[in-house]
């Protein structure tokens, strides 16, 4: 399979054709050229799956292995929707004021205590402070095999 190449200067809009993957009953020889215009070529559009709310959805890249035991690995791309409510158990992107940097962790909200939980035995949960800023909720992890 082949993903259509992005032209140099168009917007990375996930609701446009950039996320289309060609699909054909005739196997993988489907071409873009229209040479086989009488052959039905369907497209699997990943946008409705990955990007259900384009206006508030952002893509971020994750470095580090603090979440490695929960399917989130170094170099993965996460899709983040800022419109979603914060929920116990969701992975969230947070700005940690004191450390002056970003983190992605699993949110734990129980009995009025708010923690960010890592998925790496070497790390401890972090107690969220009033200065920390919740930025968005992770909806997808894109991991390249």
């Amino acid at each position: 399979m082949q993903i259509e190449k992005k032209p140099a200067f168009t917007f990375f809009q996930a609701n446009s054709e950039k996320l289309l993957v060609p699909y054909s009953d005739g196997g993988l020889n489907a071409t873009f050229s229209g040479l086989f215009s009488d052959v039905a070529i369907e497209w699997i559009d990943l946008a409705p799956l990955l990007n259900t709310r384009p206006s508030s959805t952002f893509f971020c890249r994750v470095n580090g292995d603090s979440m490695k035991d929960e399917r989130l690995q170094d170099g993965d791309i996460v899709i983040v929707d800022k419109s979603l409510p914060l929920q116990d158990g969701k992975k969230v992107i947070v700005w940690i004021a004191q450390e002056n940097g970003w983190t992605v962790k699993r949110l734990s909200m129980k009995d009025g205590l708010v923690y960010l939980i890592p998925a790496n035995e070497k790390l401890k949960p972090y107690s969220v402070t009033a200065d920390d800023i919740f930025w968005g909720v992770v909806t997808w992890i894109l991991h390249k095999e």
Partner: protein
Amino acid sequence: MMYALVDINGAFVSMEMVFRPADRNKPAIVLSNGDGCIIAANKIAKNLPGFEMYTPAFQLDDILKRNNVLRFSPNFELYVDMSRRFIKELNCFTDKVEMYSIDEAFLDLDIKNVDLLSYGYTIKDTIFKNLDLPVGIGIAPTKALCKVASRIAKKFVERTNNVYVIDTEEKRIKALKWLKIGDVWGIGSRYAKKLLDLGIKTAYQFTQLTDNWVLRNMTVVGLRLKHELEGKSCLNLDEIKESKKEIGTAKAFGSMISDYELVKEATSSYIEYCAGKLRRQNSVASAILVHVETNSFRTQDEQYYNRTIVTLPVASSDTAYLVKNAIDGLNRIFKDGLKYKRVGVSLIGLFPDNCVQGNLFVDCNNKHSSIQKTIDRLNMKYEQGTIRLATSGFNKQHWESKAELRSPRYTTRLNEILNIGNDVLQL
């Protein structure tokens, strides 16, 4: 019927801060390309003593350094994308959203039995939650009054919390008595001076003039403005496109067009028109937004919409230079074999031409200045477009923008997306 004007506070800087939460309460500015002139600032920067918009940054170097003002090169690709998201968010409230400029839009509030003030706060809170963009909102029975309400919302933030509604005669009159004539939306400095000379100091006094006088002295647009301020909705937004921030045009073609040369010609002539307007207000543009679209009602045809932003290496008002760059933009998004209904151009990031820095290495701006003036004069005297450019054979050189201070294009480039790198919560 009520309208709401929603605009993004300190738009360009606020858009930068979406991805820099730690800096949200610091003074910050955006400089024109070549990093010359201050084209945008947040409120904290604007409030610094001695700070002045639209001045070359080096003149304020002392103030900027002393207050640790953050500087950005313009990232129009980011701004345009955030603007698109802003409009989409507004579309969740009503599909009647009229985009007025890159950072402001009018909404038709066709709703009954709703507390408008709390509805305004809902819009404001939603935009902030979903996009981290702070907005001000003015709600009123006409668009001109929305502008007044929005001004009040921003001026008295402590009391309004950025939302103000003009929904009674009492509030309308109070607002108009407060508003200086020079600050009335769309009145223009020439008319403002004329009115001041006649002792008309406030918007309220302006509305006390007779229709007859206004029509004779200030054209039909002036009369409509008066009616709007009186609470009678009658304004066509195109008539009053505020000059300060953005100049654009996007007329539909008479018939569907597939021919590249014709689309190119239209683009070129729209730019000529906008550039003329730009020069009449003694401004230059930092970037050009170009879009093409097919007719979405012709469902039998293949549909296409795309747009692109061309950031100019050096801000300019030169028609030849703007046309060349607009055509470059068109070439990126034009697809053969489609039936186009419309092409549109907008000049954005405008600022006064007297603070253009220029760049020794870019063949751009004022070289054509005297020729340009002659062309403008002839076009004014005869018909717009009498003297036209031969839009071909331009220098094919490409200039890389000096963009050292430009933030990543977080939302439009996969290799520049927000990096949750070096996660701070790992040891």
